[in-house]
C-alpha cells in the first residue's frame, strides 16, 4: 500500500531524570531513537521485559508524554504541532486501555455515569437518553447482557473479566482510529485471556481501529498477531532490536537477544521444554537503565559480541520483511 501509515514514530527519544534528593541527578533514556509505523487497521505487538520502555513508547504515541527529540506523526501530521482543537481531535482518535481495569474507572460512579459524559461532550450523542441507548448497544457488543444490568452497577460489583469488557467498550466508544492496549489482558486469568483478545479483534473489525498491543508475554503476542494482522516488535533497553510480520520473529529469530529469549521461555510441553538447552549468555544480569552499555546495548550479555559491538550502535536494518539491529545479522539469517 502506498498510502500514508496511520501512525509514524520517527527517531523518538525520551529521557527521564532520576534521583536528585539524595543522589546526583541522572538521565535515564527510557526510549532511545525508536522508529516504528502502524498502518490503518493494523496491529503492532510490542514485546519486552519490564523496564524496557514499552509503556513509555505507548504513552509517547498518545501525546501523554512529549518526546525529547524525534516526531510522532498521526495521519501524516506531527502531533506536537497541532492546534488546540486539532490536538483534542487527535486525543479522541487515540485511546488507551490500562492494565488494571479496576483503577481505570471511578469506583463511586456507576458504569453509565463513567461512560456517558465523554459521549455527550464529544457530541457522539445529543443527550443522556441517547447515550444510554448507545451504551446499551456497546455493552451488548462486548458480551455483557442484559446491558441495563451492567450500566447501573458500580465497578466493585463486577468481576475482572467483566470490567475488562467495560474498559474495551469505553476505549472504542468514541470510535477512535488507534488504541494502545498496555498489558490489557495480563491481569486476567488464563482462562479469560484468549476471550478478551478475541473480543479486541472483533471490535477491530467493527470499528476499524489499529492496536499497539504492549505485552511482556510472547505467547499472547503471537496469538494476537496471528489472529489479527500485523507485526511483532521486540524491545530491549529502550530500543527496538527486531521486528517482523506475523510471528516470523518467534519462528526464525535473528537478533541474538531474540534468539536467547526463544530458547529461554518455558513452553507448556514437558518433553519439549526440558530438552531445550540453557541459553549461553556472558552475563545474566540486565544492565541498569542509568548505565546503559555503549554500542549495542546487548553486547555485555551477548555470546557473539565482538569489538565493534562495544563501539558502534547497530542500526535497525531490513532483511526481507524483517528489521534487525545487529552488526552480525547476516550470520544469523537462516
Amino acid at each position: 500500500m502506498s498510502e500514508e501509515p496511520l501512525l509514524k514514530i520517527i527517531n523518538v527519544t525520551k529521557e527521564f531524570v532520576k534521583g536528585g534528593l539524595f543522589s546526583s541527578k541522572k538521565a535515564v533514556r527510557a526510549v532511545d531513537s525508536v522508529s516504528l509505523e502502524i498502518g490503518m487497521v493494523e496491529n503492532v505487538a510490542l514485546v519486552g521485559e519490564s523496564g524496557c520502555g514499552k509503556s513509555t513508547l505507548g504513552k509517547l504515541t498518545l501525546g501523554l508524554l512529549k518526546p525529547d527529540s524525534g516526531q510522532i506523526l498521526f495521519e501524516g501530521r506531527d502531533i506536537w504541532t497541532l492546534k488546540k482543537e486539532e490536538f483534542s481531535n487527535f486525543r479522541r482518535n487515540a485511546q488507551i486501555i490500562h492494565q488494571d481495569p479496576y483503577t481505570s474507572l471511578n469506583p463511586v460512579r456507576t458504569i453509565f455515569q463513567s461512560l456517558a459524559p465523554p459521549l455527550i461532550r464529544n457530541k457522539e450523542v445529543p443527550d443522556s437518553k441517547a447515550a444510554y441507548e448507545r451504551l446499551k448497544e456497546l455493552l451488548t457488543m462486548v458480551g455483557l447482557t442484559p446491558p441495563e444490568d451492567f450500566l447501573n452497577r458500580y465497578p466493585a460489583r463486577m468481576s475482572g473479566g467483566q470490567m475488562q469488557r467495560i474498559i474495551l467498550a469505553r476505549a472504542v466508544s468514541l470510535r477512535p482510529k488507534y488504541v494502545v492496549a498496555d498489558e490489557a489482558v495480563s491481569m486476567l486469568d488464563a482462562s479469560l485471556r484468549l476471550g478478551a483478545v478475541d473480543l479486541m479483534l472483533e471490535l477491530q473489525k467493527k470499528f476499524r481501529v489499529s492496536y499497539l498491543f504492549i505485552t511482556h508475554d510472547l505467547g499472547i503476542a503471537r496469538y494476537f498477531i496471528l489472529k489479527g494482522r500485523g507485526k511483532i516488535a521486540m524491545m530491549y533497553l529502550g530500543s527496538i532490536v527486531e521486528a517482523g510480520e506475523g510471528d516470523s520473529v518467534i519462528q526464525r529469530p535473528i537478533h541474538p537477544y531474540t534468539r536467547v529469549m526463544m530458547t529461554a521461555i518455558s513452553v507448556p510441553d514437558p518433553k519439549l521444554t526440558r530438552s531445550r538447552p540453557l541459553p549461553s549468555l556472558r552475563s545474566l544480569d540486565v544492565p541498569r537503565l542509568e548505565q546503559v552499555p555503549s554500542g549495542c546495548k546487548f553486547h555485555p550479555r551477548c555470546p557473539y559480541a565482538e569489538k565493534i559491538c562495544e563501539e558502534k550502535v547497530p542500526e535497525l536494518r531490513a532483511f526481507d520483511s524483517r528489521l534487525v539491529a545487529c552488526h552480525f545479522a547476516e550470520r544469523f539469517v537462516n
Partner: protein
Amino acid sequence: MEFRVPRGILKAVDNLDLDVYNDEVLGLVGESGCGKSVLAHTILRIVDPNGRIAGGKIMFQGKDILSMSKEELRRFRWKEIAIVFQGAFNSFNPVIRIFEHMLDTTYAHDEKASKEEIVKRSKELMRMVRLDPDAVLVRYPHELSGGMKQRAVAAMAMLLDPKLLILDEPFSALDVLTQKFFMKTLVDIRRETRKSMIFITHDLAQVAEIADRVAVMYGGVIVEAAGVEDIFYKPRHPYTRALLKAVPSIVGSIDELKPLPGPLPDPVNPPPGCEFHPRCPHRIDICSRVRPKLEQVDDVSLVACHRWRELN
C-alpha cells in the same frame, strides 16, 4: 479453610485431599482465587484473622499439624516444612545485611544454633543457589538484583534443612532469563538434596519445566492430579483440557486454541455439584447436583469428574 467476608462465608479450600511424597516436586496449578496459596498457608497453619480451619487433618510423617501446640508448631515450621511466600524477595528488611536475615531466621525457630554453624550453613546454601557467599552475605538487600534476592530467599528457606519446601509463585516477578536459570538451579538442588517441593504457580509452562507430578485446582478443590506428562499429553478432567487449550505459547498451532467460556465461580456462592459444570462443555444432569469425588485412576492419577471414563 474458610474466611468470614462481608457477603458470607468463603470456603477457599473445601474438603480437599492431597498427598505429597518423598523426593518429589509437586506442581500446584490453578487460576487466581482457586485457593492454591490458601492451601499452602493452611499446610503451615498460617491463618488470617478472619479465617479458620474448619476441619480436616494435615499429616506430616504421622503427626497432625493441626493438633500441635504453639511451641511445637514454632519448632516444626522451617525445620520440617519451610515456605517461600509470593513476593517474599521484596520483604527483606532493608536496613540489615543478608547474613543477619539468616541469623534471625535460624534463631526464630532454633534458639540453640551456634553462630559458626549458621555461617557455615549460610555459605553452603549460597553456593547451592549459585550465589557467591562472600559477596552476597555482607550485602544489604537493595544491593542485590531481583534474581539474586529471590535465590537468597530460597537459600534462607533451606537454613534448617526442611524436608518439604513450599514455593509460592517463586518466578513470577523475574525476567525470562533469570526465571530459566533459577528453575534449573531448583532442579539441581532437588537432585542434590532429595527434598520434596510444592511449587505453586498459575503458569502451566513453568510446571511443565520442573514438576514431577501436577495437581490442578479449581474452586477450592483438586480436580485432577497426575504425572506431569499425563497432565499435558493425556489430561482427563475437562477443566485441565480447556485450560491447556486456552494458554497461548510460542510453539504449537494457534488454531487449536480456544477461549474458555463463562466466568470463574463465585467462591461465596459456589455452584452446586461440580464447581466447573457451568463452564463445562460435557456437563450432564448429575453434574449440577452431585459433587464428583476425587477418584483413583491408576497408581498416581486422580480425577474428580462424573464422566472421565466415557470422555477418555
